[in-house]
C-alpha cells in the first residue's frame, strides 16, 4: 500500500494501472497514452470524487509499474476484490474517458466504420423499410383477443 498523496495524471502508479486496465492493442492506444490520463483523472475527480481516486491509488501495490502484464493483472484483480466499489467507480470513468476521446474514436472509425463524430446533426443513412419482408406476417389472420 502506498501513502495518500494528491492524485496526478503523470503518477507512474496511476499510469501503470491505466495501462493494465486498457492496454495498447494496435491501432488502439492504451488508456495511459497521450492526454487520456488527464481525461480519466478529471472524470473520476469530478464525478466520483477525489476520495474514491485516493482509495484506488493508495490500494495499488507500490511496485506495480515494474511488474509484467500478467503480474499487474493479478495485482489489480486482487485489488478489485478488496475494493469493489472504488475499483468499479474508477473503471467506469476510465471507460468513459477512453471511449469518448477523439483519438480513440478516430481509431474506432478506422477499425469498425463507426463515424468519429456525434450523432447529430448529420445522422446516418439507412435503407428504407422493405414492405415485402412482411409477406409471411400478412398471411396471418388477426389474432388479437376479442373483448
Amino acid at each position: 500500500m502506498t501513502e495518500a498523496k494528491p492524485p496526478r495524471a503523470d503518477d507512474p502508479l496511476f499510469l501503470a494501472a491505466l495501462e493494465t486496465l486498457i492496454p495498447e492493442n494496435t491501432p488502439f492506444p492504451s488508456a495511459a497514452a497521450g492526454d487520456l490520463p488527464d481525461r480519466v483523472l478529471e472524470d473520476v475527480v469530478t464525478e466520483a470524487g477525489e476520495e474514491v481516486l485516493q482509495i484506488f491509488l493508495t490500494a495499488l501495490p507500490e511496485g506495480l509499474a515494474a511488474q509484467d502484464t500478467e503480474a499487474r493483472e493479478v495485482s489489480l484483480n486482487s485489488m478489485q476484490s478488496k475494493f469493489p466499489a472504488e475499483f468499479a467507480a474508477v473503471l467506469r470513468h476510465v471507460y468513459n474517458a477512453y471511449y469518448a476521446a477523439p483519438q480513440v474514436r478516430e481509431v474506432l472509425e478506422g477499425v469498425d466504420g463507426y463515424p468519429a463524430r456525434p450523432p447529430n446533426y448529420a445522422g446516418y443513412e439507412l435503407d428504407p423499410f422493405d414492405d415485402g419482408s412482411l409477406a409471411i406476417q400478412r398471411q396471418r389472420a388477426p389474432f388479437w383477443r376479442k373483448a
Partner: protein
Amino acid sequence: MGAAAGLAAARSKYGRLIRDAHAAEDIESEVLIIGAGASGAAAAWRLSELGFDVVCLEQGDWLDYLEIPSIEDDWELIRQRSWNPNPNIRGLASDYPVEDSDSPIKPLMYNGVGGSTIMWSCHAPRFHPSDFRTNTLDGVGADWPLSYWDLEPYYDLNDRMSGVSGLNGDPANPERPPRPLAPLPIGKGAERIASALDDMGWHWWPNDVQVYSSAYGNETGDCNHCGPCELACPVRAKASTDVTYWPKALDNGVRLISKARVFELESDERGRVTGAAYYDRDGVVRRVSARVVIVAANGIGTPRLLQLSASKSHPDGLANRSGQVGRNLMLHPVALVTGVFDENLEGYRGITANCITSQEFYETIDGATFKRGYMIQFLRSLGPVLTALGGYGVPIPWGQGHHKRFLEVFNHTATAGIVCEDIADPNNRITLDSTLTDDNGIPAPRMTYTLSDNSKDMIAHGLKTCTEIMQAAGARETYSMELVEQGGFHLMGTARMGDDPETSVLNRWSQAHDADNLFVIDGSAFTTAAAVNPTNTLQALALRAADRIAETRGEI
C-alpha cells in the same frame, strides 16, 4: 459546406422553440392544468380548440434545442449525468427527488415543457381490447370502466395530431387507419430477427413510432436515424409535445407558466377544487383559481400532489376517500436478452429503442404459471461508451483481452426487451416521505414496489423465448439482464379509474369520484398496465377527458 458551417446552419434552422410566460400575480382561469407533458399538452390543445380559457403550470422549463447532447462529442457522458432519465441522478433544479430505496426498479421521468416525451423513444402502440377487461378474461387486475372502442376515436385523433410512422394491417391488433407516415427503416439486426420470427411462425411488425420518416407539420424535420431519441431530437423529428401540441395550444391562447412548482390543490368546504398554489420561478407563492382542475403530473407526481392536498373536506388527501390514491403503482418490468452476431449490424444507425416488436406472447398462455403476457421490443446497439460499460448487462472486461472483446460486441449486437404487463398490487405505492424534500421544502414521494411472482415467472418465460429467437437469428452467443433497474419510465395506476368509488379514484371520464371538477389524465388513471408503452393511451384518455369537460361545461 464545411462541418462548422453545416453545424451553424443546422442550429439556425432548428433553433430555439421557447415561448415563455410567467405570471407576476395571482390569476384566474376556466381550466387549470398541472403538468405540461404528454397528457397535459393534449388536453390543453383540445380544450383551447373548444374555446376554453386554459392555464397550465409546469415545474420545469422549455427545452433549449441548442443544448441537446447528441450534437456534442461527449454525448454518451452527458447521457449518464445531466441527461440521465433518473431524476435522482440527474438532480436538476426542475426535478424533485424520489425516495426509491424500496423499489428494485428506479423511477425515470423528465420535468419540463413536453414532460417525459422529451426523453421518450416515441414507441406509440395502442392497448389491446383485452387490456381493458383483464379481470373478466383472466381473473387478475380490475376491468376498466371503458373499453378500447370508447378510446379508439381518440387514439386516431392523437395519431393525427402527433404524427405516426408505421403500417396498418398488423394481425396482432385491431385494424386502424393508414398511418400518416411511411414506416421507419428497421436496420440489419431487426431484419435478421424478423426473418427468424417468420421461420418460427411468430409475430413481428414494424413499430408505430411517433418519429417522422418525413416532416410532419411546421417546424419539424425528417428523422436522420441518429439513434438516441431519448436525448431529445435536435431536428425535431419526433413527437415531443413541445413540438406537437404546445405550439398549437399557445396559438389558441393557452397560458403556459413554466418553472411553477405546485405544492397544493386547494378545495372548498363542499370538496370542490378551487385552484392551486405554487412557487413561481422566484420562489414566490402564487395562486391560480379555476373552475376545473386537471392533474397531469405523472404516476408519481400526481399522487404526491393529491396527498399533499389534504384539507378539511379531503382529510386523507384530495379525492382519496377510497384510500386508493398512490396505491396500485404499476410499472413495466423489463428484462433483456442480447445476441452477439458475427456480422457488423451497424446498430448505431436508427432509433436505439425502436424498430420492430413481437406481440406473440401478449395474452395469457395456456398452462403458464403467470397471467397476462409480454411484448418483445427489439433494440439496436449502444454507443462505444455504453457498450464498454455494459449498458445491456455485461461490461467489457478490462485487461489484455479488452479490445478484442469490445470489437466482438460493439455494433454486433441486437437486443430483445421483454416488456411485462404488471398486475396492480395495492402494496406497490407512492406515499409522502417523512424526511426527504425537494428544493422548495415540499415532501418528496416515496416509491414502494415489489416485483410480483407473476412478473418473475413472466420474465423467466421471456428470457427463454428471446434466447431462442436470438439463436434462431444466428447469434453466436447470448447474454441477459434479468431485470432492468433503470427501467421505471412507465408510471401507472396510482389514481385509477373504476365504476366503484370505494375501490377507485376516478370514474370513466378520468373525473374524481370525490370532486367532480377534478380530473386526472396521466398514467395514474390507468386501471391496468397492459404490456405496451402507455403514452399513446394516456394522450387518448386526455383528449377524451377534454371532450367530457366540454360536454358538461356549465354543469361542473
